[in-house]
């Protein structure tokens, strides 16, 4: 919240006396300079630091409460932390800086909370029911799932193996996905692939502000007890699936799996 601190202090010397007087009268509030209105404004301390302070950070006078707007859509506290760029979420999944940019861009563009929610719509968390499981994930993902609009690129943009399985249930197959890959080698333990070069075309970039930008090679393996297929990212230096598979568990190259399920 460095940006917000800058807005609160230091204040011009000429204003200090006035500010001290205001503080005495209004405990639990802060005096903030609103750049848009070019004036000092008295704001609830808590609301400033957790909610409407974002407007002041953007140099704007608050138009609505972004937190109240997000709450209207059923976002939890943890989800709001992700959406406002404070938290990377479980597994450190989201890029905080990128999410903050998206959030601030929506605030700057929107004149009403409805417009704000419309701009944030693809990123808002929603329930997706598949089989016996309810997933909590971004609306953009849910809509693609329901419309069966996923492409193999979406598969590679997704970090979570569980969500990759959802993508495979929604219109594309592991064969479609593997068509984007080039086989390096296969053995009794799996298949090792690299992403096919596509001329000057950019590799798929993350669909949501995920962390990172490097494309790994992929190890294709099938779970012996569930039959579930996996594509796991592995370093590009491996040439044998067996070696890459041992790397995924940090094992010696000679390690032997005596029992697997």
């Amino acid at each position: 919240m460095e940006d917000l601190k800058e807005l609160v202090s230091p204040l011009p010397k000429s204003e200090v006396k006035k500010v001290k007087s205001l503080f005495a009268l209004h405990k639990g509030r802060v005096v903030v300079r609103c750049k848009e209105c070019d004036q000092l404004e008295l704001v609830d301390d808590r609301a400033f630091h957790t909610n409407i302070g974002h407007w002041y950070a953007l140099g704007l006078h608050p138009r609505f409460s972004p937190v109240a707007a997000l709450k209207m859509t059923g976002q939890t506290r943890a989800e709001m932390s992700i959406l406002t760029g404070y938290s990377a979420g479980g597994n450190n999944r989201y890029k905080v800086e990128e999410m903050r940019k998206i959030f601030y861009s929506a605030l700057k563009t929107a004149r009403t909370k409805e417009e704000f929610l419309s701009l944030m719509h693809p990123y808002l968390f929603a329930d997706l029911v598949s089989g016996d499981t309810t997933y909590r994930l971004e609306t953009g993902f849910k809509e693609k799932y329901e419309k069966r609009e996923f492409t193999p690129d979406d598969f590679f943009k997704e970090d979570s193996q569980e969500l990759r399985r959802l993508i495979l249930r929604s219109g594309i197959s592991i064969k479609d996905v593997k068509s984007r890959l080039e086989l390096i080698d296969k053995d009794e333990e799996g298949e090792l692939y690299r992403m096919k070069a596509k001329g000057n075309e950019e590799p798929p970039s993350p669909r949501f502000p995920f962390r990172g930008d490097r494309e790994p090679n992929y190890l294709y393996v099938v779970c012996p007890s569930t039959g579930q297929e996996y594509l796991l990212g592995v370093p590009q230096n491996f040439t044998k699936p067996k070696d890459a598979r041992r790397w995924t568990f940090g094992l010696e190259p000679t390690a032997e799996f005596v029992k697997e399920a």
Partner: protein
Amino acid sequence: MSQKVYRQGDLAFIPVTDIPKDAKAANTRVIRTGENGGVHALEEKSSAVMYEMNGVRYILSEDGVGIVHGEHKKVDLPAGKYEIRVQRELGQEGVRDVID
């Protein structure tokens, strides 16, 4: 001699000579819960004890222990000491545990 490893889904159980002295009893049977509720756990009837140090878990089993999971078949570990290792992969940002 090569490492002999047991595996259930995204977990490997690697026999070790010793469990670190400072490891503390974890007081739970749950080894790992996936993002969507799949649980790897020590079989209920077993007397095996799980230990933890610096985020790494270990199993001490004097009579052998079954590792159970809702989707994967049971894996029986012979009596001994094991380090539990979570499968990792290379994501676009670097190495991370498999998110399953």
